[in-house]
Structures are given as C-alpha cells and as structure tokens.
C-alpha cells in the first residue's frame, strides 16, 4: 500500500498563481464566451429524435462582435464528434472519420446527436448496443460539439461543448439538468439592461459609468430555482455550484469570478488603453454543461 503524495494537493493550491499576463477576463480579440446547449444533457436512446441546439456566444472589443457574413468577421465552423479523446488529447475526435460538420443558422446549430452517432457507427460497420449494460458501457458517455473561428485558414479560437448522454435509463429520482438562469445583473447598484443586439453595442444606452481610476460594483444574481441537485459518481446528492465569469473589453475586474447565489466583482477603470467605454458580460456555468450568458452591458468611463 503506497501513499499518494500530498504535494499533488499542494501543487493544486499553488495553481493559478498570478503573473503579469493580461487577465483572461479582458477581451482583446475575438473570444468564444460560451457554447450554450439546450438541453445540457440527453436521455437514453428512445427511438425518437432528441434534437439538440447549441448557440455560440462570441465577444470582441468594440465596436462589438462581428456578425456572421461580415467581411471582417472570421469564418465559423461547427462539427460533431461522438467519441472524444478527452482533454489530454485537446478534445480531438477519437475516430476522426466520425467527426461530421454541422450547418448553423446564425450562431446556432440544431441536430440529433444520437442519430449522428448511429450514422457514424453504421459507416464503421457497427451499431449502438441494444443492451448497454451487457456491452460494458458506462451509464453516461460524453459527445462533443466543436466550434471554430478561423481566419486565413488559421484557427483563431476553438471551443467544445461536452454533452453528457445517458446510455441507459437514469436512476429513479433523476431529473434532467437545467441550465442556470441569471436572474439579473446590477451595475453600480442599479439593474442593468443589456445592449439589444451584438451589432449595436456602441450605441446602446450605458448601464453604468465610472470615473477613470474608480471602481464600479457589478453583481450577477443566479435564480435559485435554476440550481439543481444531482448525484455524483458515488451516488451522493450534491447541489450544483454555479460559477459566474465576468468579461470586459476594457478596465480590470477586482475578481474575475464569483459564485451563486450572487456573484460580485468591481470593474476598475484602469489600464483602459484609451477606451471610452467597455462592454461587460456575465457567463454562468453549473459545471455540468448548463450555461447562461448575460450581456453585453455598456459601461462608460468618465474623466476623473
């Protein structure tokens, strides 16, 4: 019997130590904020279609995220892979022949993952097992939806959404995971209204203002009714932890993340790089696949 090293835990503690890099919460180029899947997880095969839609939320510095079809906008590519090689392989598709392109409508794709998986297996001469338990399959597997932003053939950004799929009937008491809901965002203590559309961000009404050198309080409230209980791999019932990530196109956050019920931070009007305003987003994740995006909210910087 050999002990596991404590140093692994200590190393984890030290992970994320600060450096001089620009924080990840500051958006300086095109950035995929989230791939929001609906529903976040799929039940077992039922013989009927289980459509899945995934929407990409893309942010960029003002004048705002370029829209699809805009000549300045990078090309977008969607694909689906039923067999992920996992994070250690950079989420490559374990069977590249099974990675199929998806056709979006705007920034959303809608398709039937189980049908695509069956089609892939059929191409390989196989099929989904009729009795997953007997075939030795685990209760759940993950399939991948991939989204890429490309310019000149080079990948600018790549994001994947892992979709859990039940291979067999879930245990009694199971309820499908729901995406967390952001009940509201307040900026400077007042309820904030997001800009109406990605292309109109530079003209939308400011949700808040802050003098250069000052700080502006921002809070994102999570709807408690959207926070689910779930069973982990050992059968324990746990309550989701909803993590909220904040993003801005200018300035710096005092905290880049918070968690439910109300995630808070402050936007410091510093290191603005000449920006007169900033766009701010809040992205909530339940870390099980459920996501929600609020924003962008326009914040104006005033002279001190």
């Amino acid at each position, binding site marked *: *019997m*050999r*002990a*596991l*090293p*404590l*140093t692994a*835990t*200590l*190393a*984890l*503690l030290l*992970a*994320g*130590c600060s*450096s001089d*890099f*620009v*924080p*990840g919460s500051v958006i300086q180029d095109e950035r*995929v904020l*989230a791939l929001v899947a609906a529903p976040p997880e799929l039940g077992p095969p039922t013989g009927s279609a289980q459509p899945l839609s995934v929407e990409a939320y893309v942010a960029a510095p003002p004048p705002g995220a370029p829209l699809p079809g805009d000549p300045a906008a990078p090309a977008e590519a969607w694909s689906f892979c039923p*067999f*992920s*090689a996992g*994070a*250690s392989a*950079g*989420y490559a598709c*374990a*069977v590249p022949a099974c990675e199929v392109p998806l056709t979006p409508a705007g920034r959303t794709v809608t398709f039937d993952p189980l049908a695509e998986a069956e089609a892939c297996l059929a191409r390989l001469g196989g099929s989904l097992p009729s009795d997953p338990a007997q*075939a*030795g399959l*685990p209760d759940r*597997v993950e399939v991948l939806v991939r989204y890429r932003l490309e310019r000149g053939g080079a*990948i600018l*950004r*790549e*994001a*994947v*959404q*892992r979709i859990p799929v039940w291979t067999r009937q879930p245990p009694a008491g199971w309820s499908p995971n729901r995406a967390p809901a952001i009940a509201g965002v307040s900026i400077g203590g007042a309820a904030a209204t997001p800009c109406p559309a990605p292309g109109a961000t530079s003209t939308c009404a400011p949700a808040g203002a802050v003098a250069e050198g000052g700080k502006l309080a921002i809070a994102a409230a999570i709807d408690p009714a959207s926070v689910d209980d779930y069973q*982990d*791999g*050992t059968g*324990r019932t*746990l309550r989701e*932890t909803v*993590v909220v*990530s904040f993003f801005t196109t200018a300035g710096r956050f005092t905290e*880049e*993340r*918070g*968690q439910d019920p109300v995630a808070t931070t402050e936007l410091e009007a510093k290191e603005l790089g000449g920006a007169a305003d900033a766009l701010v987003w809040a*992205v909530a*994740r339940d*870390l*099980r*696949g459920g*996501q929600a995006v609020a924003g962008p909210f326009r914040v104006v910087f005033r002279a001190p």
Partner: protein
Amino acid sequence: MTRIVTPSPLPLLALAAALALSPAARAAGPADAPTPPATQAPADASPPPAGAGEPVLATPPALRRLVPAQLPPGTVFPGPSVDVVLGIDVSETGAVEAVRVEQGAGEPFDAAALEAAKEFTFDPGRLSTGEPVPVTISFRFTITAPPAPAVLEAAPPAPPVRFSGRLLERGTRRPIAGAAVSIRAGGEPVRVTSGADGTFSAEVPSATFTVVAAPPGHERLEAKVEARPGEERAETFYLERTGTGFETVVRAAPVRREITRQVIPAEEVAQVPGSQGDTIKAVLNLPGAARPAFGGGMVILRGSAPGDSRFFVEGQEIPLLYHFGGLRSTVNPRFLESVEFVPGNFAPDYGRATGGIIEVKLRDPAADMVRGDAGISFYDAGASIEGPLGGGWSGGAAFHRSWIDTLLPLFIPSDADLSFDTAPRYYDYQVMAARALGDQRLRLLWYGSLDRIVAVLKRPNEDPKLSGRLAARTMFHAVQARLEGEVRPGLRQETSLQVTYQQFRTQFGPEFYFDLGGVTAALRSAWTLDVAPGLQARAGVDSDVTGVRIDLNVPQPPKEGDVQTPVSTTPTVALGKSTTQRQPGAFAELRWEPLRGLAILPGARLDGYSQLGRLTLDPRLAVRWEVAPDTTLKGGVGLYQQPPAPDESDEAIGNPHLRAPRALHASVGLERRLMQGLDADVTGFHKSLSRLVVRNPANAFDPSAPRYVNEGTGRVYGLEATVKARFGERFFGWVAYTFQRAFRKDGFGRPERRFDFDQPHILTVLGTWRLSPAWSAGARFRLVSGNPDTPVERSVLDSTSGTFVPVYGAVNSSRLPAFAQLDLRVDRTWTYRTWKLALYLDVQNATNRGNVEGYAYSYDYARRTPSTGLPILPILGLDAEW
C-alpha cells in the same frame, strides 16, 4: 581487504603522512605522553570513510581487557619504559586472532608483549551498518619499568590519597577507554590506565599531585589536584576530541549482494549543504538519483518512475519517506545509523519494485548513559532522548514538528484568495527499545508520521472545480519488532514483523475526495547458513497482508507521461470498497566463492499477488571479482517485477487482468581505491522495461474496453561515476556524475518518447571541511539537465467548465533549461563539558540563480513565462546535544 584512510586535511598531506610516519609512530601519543607499567598506548582508528562503495568502519575495536606483560625477574630496562608496536588482528567477536611485532624493542620485551596481547579482548570494530567485522589495528604496547624500591621507601609517611578519576569526551560524555594516565607527585609517577567506562584509580602518596593524560585523538590533560592526606577523592576530566591519526584495516568486507550499494553513515553527511542534517535527503545527491522537480519530494532512480522504487526501515516498508515536497524525511536522523542506497540490481531479499531501493538502518539507543538533543531550524524543531532502561534494555524517543503553520500566515495577506484553516504542518516520531537476548538482538520500534493541511479558496479558481475547502491529511503509525543474531555457529537469522496503520484523506472542492485507511501486517525473515568454506546460502520470506477501505471520487489519477489538464475537464473515477490484498514472497540466494576474491551470487525471488491472481518469478545474478587488492570488477543481471498501481488493477476503475510490469536490469562496473582516502566507482547500466501499464486508447471510443493495458515499454541506459574522498575528520565529499537516458513507448506502434525525468547529465560536487573543532564549512554544487517538457501548441475552450485546455505537441519533446545551484553551509560548534551547541547557516541557492522549473501560461496558453524555483534561501538552525 579494504583499507580505511589515514585522516589528514588534504590528499597530499595524507600521502606525506603515510610516507613519513609508520602506523605505529602515528599511533603513539605525544612524546611526553605518560605510559603505565606494563600497559599500552591505546589502539585507535580514524572514523572511516566510504571505501569503494563498501560500508565503512564506524567504530574501531575498543580494548575491553588488558593483560600486563610478564617479564622475567631481573629484567633490565634500557630506560624508564620500552615500546613494542604490535599488529593485532581483532576478530568480529572482539577476540585476538593473531599478533605480530611490527616494531620491536628486543627480547624479552617483544615476547612478553606478544604473550600478553594474545589475552587481550576488545569490543569488536563495527561497520556503519552495525555489522561487526574483523579489523587489524596497530597497537603500541608500552612496558614500563617497575618503580625502584628506593623510590617507594622515599615516599612520605603521610597516608596516601585514594584517588579515582574518569576521563570523558568533552561535549558527548563518551568514556575515553584505555588511556594512559600518569599521576605525578614529585617522585616516580603513578601510572594507570582508564577502563572501558573511562575510570581509573590509584593510591597517591602525596596530597598534591598532577594528573597527566594524552589519549590519542583528544586534547592533553594536565590537571593539578590538591587533596587532604588520606582523602578519598574523585574527579571527572572532560577532554575535547581533536581528531585521530591512526590506521585501521578492515580485513574482511561484509557480504555484498548488490552491484551498486552506497552506504551513507548518518554522521558523514549530516553537514551536507542543502540537507539540514537530514541523511535521507542527502542520499539524493548520489549517482543514479535524478533531481526531483521543485517541491516534488520524489525519488527517481535510474530512470524509473517514483512509484517503482521502495523504501524500508530495517527491511520493512515505510509508507512515506518524505514530508511535504521532500522538505524533511519522516525518520528522525537522531537514531539513524546509515542509509543504504541501491539504484538497481538489488538482491532478491527485495522485490515488488522495478526501480531501486533505499533502506534506513537504525542504531540501538545508547545503553551507557542518558543522552539527548534538541534542535530548531527555519521550518521545524525536534528533540530526542535515549539511555539505559534497566533489565538490559536501552530505549529512546525522538519527535519532530514543523512550524511552517506558524510562519506561513505571516506571508499571506488577509485579502488573498487563499487562506489556511490549518497551515501545512507535519509531525514524526520514533520510540525504540532494544536489548540482547543471548546471541540475538531484539529491537522494538514504534514510529509514525502525520502531514496535514486545510486551505480555503475563497473564490472559484481558473480551474473552477478547485474551490472551497482543500484539505489533505496523510499519516502512518507502525510497530516493528526485530530479532537478529547468530542461531548457532554458521547460522544467522534476521526476522522482523511490522504492523502499519496508514490513512490518506483528501478533499478538494465540494465534489472530490479520496479516503483511504488500512492496516498492513508484514513479515520478513532471512536465514543465512555457511554451508561450506566459500559457500553460503541465504533464504527467507517477505510477505504482507493488507486490509484496506477506500472511498474516492477524484479526477482520473495522472500517470507518468501524462500531460497536465485542468481538473475541471478531467474524467472522474469513483469507488467505494473494502478489500484484502495478500502478497506472499520468498527468496533464496547462494554466495559461492570458487576463487579467492571471486563471489558469484545466483538468486531468485517468488512473489504472489492476490489482486492479480498471479505469481512472478525473478531470477537474479550478481558477480563481484576482486581482481587486485584495491580493484573490484562487478556485474549483475536480474528480472524485477512489481504489481500495477492499485487503481490500475482495480476491477471497477482499472483492469484486474493486468500482469505485473517488469524490468530487466543489467549492470557492470569497477570499484577502485585510487589512494588512501580516495575511492572511485564506475558503473554502466541498462534497463529494459516491458508490460508497463498504459492507458488504453480504445477506451476513448469504446468505454467497455479496459482503461489500462500492459502495452507500455521502455529502455534506460547510462553510466554512473563517483569519486569519494575522505581525509580523516577534516574533509569528506564526493563528485558524482551520472549520464543516463530514459525512454518510454505508450503502446504498440506508438512513438518512443522521453521519460518524464530523463536527465542526461547529473553532476553533484559536495564537500565538508572541518576547519577546526569549532568551525566547519561545506558546499554543494549541482548541474543537471533540465527535465523534459511538453510544448503547448494552442488551446481549446472547454465551454462546460469555462477553462482553456492546452493542446500539446509531442510529449516531452522539448526540455527545460539546465539546473545549476550552489548551496553553502557554515557550522559553529561550542563544546562545553557535558554538552555541545551547534549553530549552522545553510544557504540554499547562494547565487540566487533563477532555475526554470516549468512555465506559467496565460489564460489561453498563448503566452508563457518561466516559473523559477526557490531564490536564495538562508536557513538558520540550532542544535544542542548532551
């Protein structure tokens, strides 16, 4: 035959001393040293150095019984005394085996000295491993003319003083035995010799007299005593140790069963810079040991993964060798006798490991008097006590506790995201008792260790599942009973039983936990029989049974060669079970010496693994051939197998059909004494690894396929060269260079890659100089190839967790910059009558070099900056010993 060096500050001085002075002349005390009637100047020996990889002489023979020379009546002395220098062979039992005159004084003195010396008895000389060995000493026998009757008649009529004295070493209170003492009272001096406990007594005809003694290796005593006539007077004299200048020869090396076995006496490396007196840390400076990553605390021997090597305390496995990150070993150095370091080709006594072994040897607690020590350093403090318990027992106890938990909060701002509920802390303890049972030696040992930390991450990290409470506690408590000794002439046994309770508990975030608790009972018994001249057989059992309860829900455990990914994106494994695991083992070995100096050791080991339902058989062979008096050729080949890691062979989260990973070790080398005090050892080695457990890529698209398979292979080759120097008590050090390459293949058809710790060049130069009895200084310089590194090519956002996942290039295809570090240490010792106080300053990374230990990346891995190890770090420590 192995010669032990003449102590001298420098090699040239040592050589000059050897040429200019005969052993006898060096054995003698100062010219005016008093000599007792019909007695001797004491035999002595230098504290020995490591000799060509052999265990070294830790304790020279000590005279237990002195027999006066019997001269024919009427012998006429040419002077007040005569000296006869004898060469005495002392057996491993302390008996005198042979005596010869090395420098005679003529008859009848030579014959009388020879006859008397045959009746001497000694406490045997002992190696650093504790084994008694036959030793040859040079012995100066001083025969003094009996006092002339006229002198006695001239003595004053006043009643004599009945004087008893005791000679003790200053600071340590160790008795100075066999010292010639002269008591001068105006007339002919009274001459006596101190006994084994350092005492002497005499009737002195004068009330005022001077006690003079000059025991070799100690300062000269000249003390005036004023007593009343007829008084019974007792005095204790404390003499400071000054070093010795004698030669001792170990005539028979102990049985060597490994090709490379470095034995490091505890005292020898106590002052190595960077080790803070921790001998078990110091062994990582030996060739064959790779430099662990910063804060790793791992032992990587000859290209084997850290989990492939095993660590023992007196033959029984210790679950945890080092506290947090290798900061300190879990065994207090106070009771250490030596550390044995075998990086490969180890004897069949040991199994279930494909790497190497480190064995900690303990000494018995002091039986002569109560002793103790206490020490404090920058990060921990400890104390120990030992002494006689009565009934033939001696006992001791030692304790260490870190106080990082007191200091660390001072450096963490209150508004930091990380706070500690329990700052990192560790304890370890040892309680020991020993006694002789006839020809057997019984030792009871209770030891254990605890490391604990509880931290709170106030906000979600970039890796969001790492948040909230992060707690870890690992501990073990073990009770060991060991009986060893000679059963009958030619038959020796060593048997030990250890029961160990081990617990490992960790929790990070609300989701992940790992709880393991279990009890292991382990039995080891080895019997050695002298079958015939030149033929020795050894056989034994080495078995254990473990009952364990394990509950876990953790990210999939990382394996050698794995790239690092965020915890939030790593698949989890969950398990809850109780299980019992049996690992019976047996071993046998012959030692056959067909020619003088040639030893052939064929052996084999059989192991069973209940978790695999399999048996493994490991044949092994070692050969040592002393081709010249100071030159030994050596070679060996053997098969080594070990069980897969518990998670790999578990039926729920691994593959119970795995086989035992194995390694074929081969090595060949040469040991040579270059000159007295200078020994060289060069060993080339090759390891072929097969059946390594690797992840099954088919599991990615077929979850019903086993997670792990035995399809990994590897190869390791290299050359280790060491030159060790020991020049008396003045200098000790070594130069160790290792060239080694280590590669792995993670499955059939997969490309070969570098091993995680493939370090082609490892150079360590270290030395400690004793400048004076009060001052010593040391330095260590290390120059090591950087560890392999896997480049990051781009990243992918895992939208589920919101973390960026690096997309890596070929595993270990790049390399970190070379590591270079200079460590310095200065010791100042104050020696008082009954205790010593030592202050040391250990400066790590004295040049403040920023050694790159890895890289820190921007959130999306687009930019990176080097992460460097510790800057210059002065560590101040204080030790008191009494």
